[in-house]
């Protein structure tokens, strides 16, 4: 009986300590790069805001909800946060919030995949394990060819055995946006010329110059 109580207490303690383990990684061969304060920052980046709209109702007669707009808005906010965190640009904001004309305007593109449940870990005793792509997919609005795809697969394991996963490399007890940002910075540096090639060259003054 005492052994059972001790095991129960241990399981409860493990759960209270945090039964969630998260691993984020990019399938691209990128090494995270730290920010450099001495790097010159020239470009002003504008991100086109998603249109706020209501989805058609899923059941006729009910009201539509702004689900798609919310998803797109979350992705846009996440892209701006990561672009700002990269420290590579002079200013990053929604296009209409900038006080000047941006050098490059980006728009969101639909990510190729969504979340998926993993069955095998569930069979191994982890009640919930799913992987979502929380990466950044965007394009320059002036060049349909210039598309940028930065996949970031975030796996989340929830359950009593999750604390054991945290001992493994790459796993953390909560989301680690800094790791995403460092890897995204490497991605941006690798695509610097393609991104900057869209910089405005007309006579209109920009914030950067």
């Amino acid at each position: 009986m005492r052994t059972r109580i001790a095991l129960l207490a241990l399981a409860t303690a493990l759960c209270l300590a945090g039964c969630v383990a998260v691993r984020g990684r990019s399938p691209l061969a990128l090494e995270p790069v730290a920010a450099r304060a001495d790097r010159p920052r020239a470009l002003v980046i504008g991100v086109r805001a998603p249109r706020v709209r209501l989805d058609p109702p899923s059941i006729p007669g009910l009201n539509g909800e702004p689900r798609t707009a919310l998803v797109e808005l979350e992705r846009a906010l996440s892209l701006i946060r990561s672009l700002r965190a990269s420290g590579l640009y002079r200013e990053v904001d929604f296009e209409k919030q900038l006080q000047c004309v941006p050098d490059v305007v980006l728009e969101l593109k639909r990510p190729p995949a969504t979340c998926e449940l993993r069955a095998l870990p569930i069979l191994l005793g982890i009640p919930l394990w799913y992987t979502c792509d929380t990466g950044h997919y965007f394009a320059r609005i002036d060049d349909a060819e210039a598309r940028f795809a930065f996949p970031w697969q975030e796996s989340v394991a929830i359950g009593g055995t999750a604390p054991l996963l945290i001992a493994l490399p790459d796993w953390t007890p909560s989301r680690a946006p800094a790791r995403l940002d460092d890897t995204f910075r490497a991605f941006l540096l690798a695509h610097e010329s393609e991104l900057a090639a869209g910089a405005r060259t007309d006579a209109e003054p920009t914030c950067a110059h």
Partner: protein
Amino acid sequence: MRALSALAALVAALGCAATHHPAPRAEPERADALRRELAGWTVGVREPVIRYSEPGAPGPDVLDEVRDAGRLVAALRDTSLFADVKLTGDLACPPRIELVVRAHAGERSGPAPAWLWLASLSVSILESDEGITFTPAAAPDELFDFPYSETLVVGVLPALASPVLLSGALPRWSFRTPTPRTRDLELFLLANADRLSRFEQPQEPCKAARSR
């Protein structure tokens, strides 16, 4: 033990939830005339300004504002008082009145006190604020505040009291859903129709496809 399990299964199967809601409002004077007047209105709900704020930064959250704008459209549509209610950008014609949603001052939701859980033998008690606050776009300081908070009680007590609740003897309690919120909002809008009509916009010619 078996009896308790059976009771728990019964509660779960019946979905014994009761909702406590505010006392119903009285029908305002000239309600029918006001209904006829509002039936010709097209209402636009202004889309929030999309802006970036750092995660966890104080101040209104743009995601909440988008959700609230969608809820305001849904709540106004449900009353069936108006000819049409849409986000302003989705309207082909300029609206008769344009509204801007504001963050409601009440608590979004909160846990009930522990004693209430014990006293009511409840599985769950949820207090939620279903209130709405908006202003006319033409008068940002003119607040229209519709307070409405509900307490949802799920558990044994609603199951035991179901005959009383179903009989309608307790006017501030609803067994299961829907709650009378939509009716209450309808009466709130009728009571404030004269005040709202002060902010009617001059009718511009309607274009088939209005540019945003």
